[in-house]
């Protein structure tokens, strides 16, 4: 799509050295997709005691590269404003997300994933305003929510961009009440502290947030899933991995073991993130749904 010009509207692309595939995507993009600004941000994993300082220098490098590209300095005040706006977004998302803690979730995962997806596309102030209104609407009209007693699911795993995939799970008769995904609820599980070194605060916040699989901290990851499963009163966990997504695939056996030991039911599914081969997955999710209903 990018080679075909499908991303021609972008002014620049910032890659993160999150995994082998992403590093290679950066290489291929640089070679085949003419883009005005391309940058790769390195991010440490596992051993983080020295990592925070290093990550800070990576942020400073990114800042420098952006300043050079735009010929415009990024002021401390600009960073502070951006942190405030994004902290507000995360706070509001979590308020909205908490509506799913109710026995009868007041918002569906499909709708919430649409909202999450919008977050990556629209101006954050506009998004914040929209969400503020939505929260008020939802709180004032709880009775209108559709009643259902479907099993409650926490969805974990590789990033998912296909909203239809989540809707598909819901249509089978499950309430997805938390997305432990870098493109879902987990994305908003972050708070940047105010300090006199904002780049350092950003570095610390992003490195110490709930880890995804690439951070090589499976115990912390599992504990967070268990904690959110309790908080959102889930009946089971669906772990979805994209095909060839090593960082998640290598975690599956151990993660499953830890979660099952904690009393959670777990279903592992693997797909290309789209709706191909969906019927085979449907059968497995239906069987899982039956099992956790009992």
């Amino acid at each position, binding site marked *: 799509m990018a080679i075909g010009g499908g991303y021609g509207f972008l002014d620049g692309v910032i890659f993160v*050295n999150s*995994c*082998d*595939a992403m*590093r*290679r*995507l*950066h*290489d*291929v993009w*640089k*070679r085949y997709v003419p883009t005005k600004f391309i940058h*790769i941000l*390195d991010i*440490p*994993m*596992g*051993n983080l*005691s*020295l*990592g925070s*300082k*290093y990550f800070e*220098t990576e942020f400073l490098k990114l800042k420098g590269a952006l300043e050079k590209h735009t010929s415009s300095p990024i002021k401390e005040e600009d960073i502070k404003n951006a942190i405030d706006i994004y902290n507000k977004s995360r706070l509001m998302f979590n308020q909205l997300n908490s509506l799913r803690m109710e026995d009868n979730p007041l918002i569906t995962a499909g709708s919430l994933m649409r909202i999450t997806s919008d977050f990556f596309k629209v101006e954050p102030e506009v998004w914040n305003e929209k969400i503020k209104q939505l929260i008020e609407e939802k709180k004032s009209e709880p009775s209108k929510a559709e009643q259902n007693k479907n099993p409650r699911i926490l969805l974990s795993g590789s990033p998912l961009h296909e909203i239809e995939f989540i809707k598909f799970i819901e249509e089978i008769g499950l309430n997805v009440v938390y997305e432990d995904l870098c493109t879902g609820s987990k994305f908003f599980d972050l708070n940047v502290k105010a300090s006199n070194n904002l780049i350092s605060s950003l570095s610390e916040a992003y490195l110490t947030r709930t880890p995804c699989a*690439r951070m*090589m901290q*499976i115990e912390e990851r599992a504990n967070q899933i268990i904690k959110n499963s309790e908080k959102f009163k889930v009946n089971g966990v669906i772990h979805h*991995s994209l*095909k*060839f997504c*090593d*960082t998640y*695939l*290598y*975690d*599956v*056996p*151990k993660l*499953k073991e830890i979660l099952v030991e904690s009393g959670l039911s777990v279903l*592992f599914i*693997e797909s290309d993130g789209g709706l191909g081969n969906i019927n085979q997955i449907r059968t497995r999710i239906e069987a899982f749904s039956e099992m956790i209903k009992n």
Partner: protein
Amino acid sequence: MASHNMLRKYFGQLETSLRNKLETKITARRRFVYEIARIGSRIFNDDWSIGWTTVFVPYEILNSMGVSGMFVEFFGAMLAGSGMSSKYLEISESKGFSTDSCSYHRTIIGAAMDGLLPKPDVLIGASIPCNGGVKALKRIGEIFNKKVFILNIPIEVTPKSVDYLTEQFEQMIEYVENETGRKLDYDKLKKSIRYNNQAREYLVEVNDLCKNIPSPANSNDLKNFIIFLLLQGTKESVEVAKLYRDEFKFRVDNKISGLPEEKYRLMWIQNRIQFKTDLLNILEEKYGASIVIDELNHIWWEPMDEDDPLRSLASRIITHPLVGPVDRRLEVITQLAQDYKISGAVNPAHWGCRQSAGARVLFKDALQKIGIPLIHLDVDCVDERNYAPGQIMTRMEAFLEMLSN
């Protein structure tokens, strides 16, 4: 359930058999494999602690602490070479490890599950070359209830990134000290840097000699030479490197070709096929095609400073062509293709290798620019269960036919 006694026996027998052969005739290859077998046996020697690692970690530091470091991919390759990988692949797959992931790593996870590996004292994984290696090490650590120390290799070469890795080495030393009670012998480390520099000089000569047409090396002389990493910084490494230099120099001076009637000069990208296959023998004997350079045998680092060993080692790892964006690797591949005057390049395109798969089009592109054809074999270098020798041979034959035009 296997026992690690099996492994002890394997290395012991290999060591004895090679020692006997060396008594009758010394060849560089024989001595090299013998030294590797000795390192294998060393993991059963109580004078040493055991370290399971990924491939790019500073073995010089571990050796200077009395820790026998061994990268897990080496075991994966060794088990494939001895026809045992299928068994361990099946074990790890039965526990839920994806068949799409790298079989080097799946093999070793299966072997650890089955009790083949002795318990490590330390586990050290580096973020480069791949995520799979660190993940595999994490799973192995869980089997033995041991934590894994992770080295983050920065993707850009700057003085600050060298500082960062140097500081991580200091932490790693502390971790090894805590886990094993062994201290770093600084004089030994200095000496190992000296040995590394001496061996490096010989290896540069070895590689230069292989630029001759015909090359003094055949396809097997420097096969899997990446495991030389395990020897680096030892007296033996200097001896092995010197033997290769002397042997190749003798061949060049006396016009002895590694492969009689060398017709096609090939470059091999990344790792070789590890299980037994007669592919290369057929290519040599029937077609006169020889591997004259393996990408991974390139000496990429500068001589090191023995008075600043940690920083020197950090710099060596950070500058490896597989670290960071692919540009440096492409430069090396292009340079090697020109220096060794190759006719074509072979990339096995090992199934499950994420760090290389995404770059395959770029390998082809870079070589095409200098008029060198490349073939992707699309084989799994460790898992022989799906290997179709006839199909691979047919493709190689077609490739060689194309090179002859």
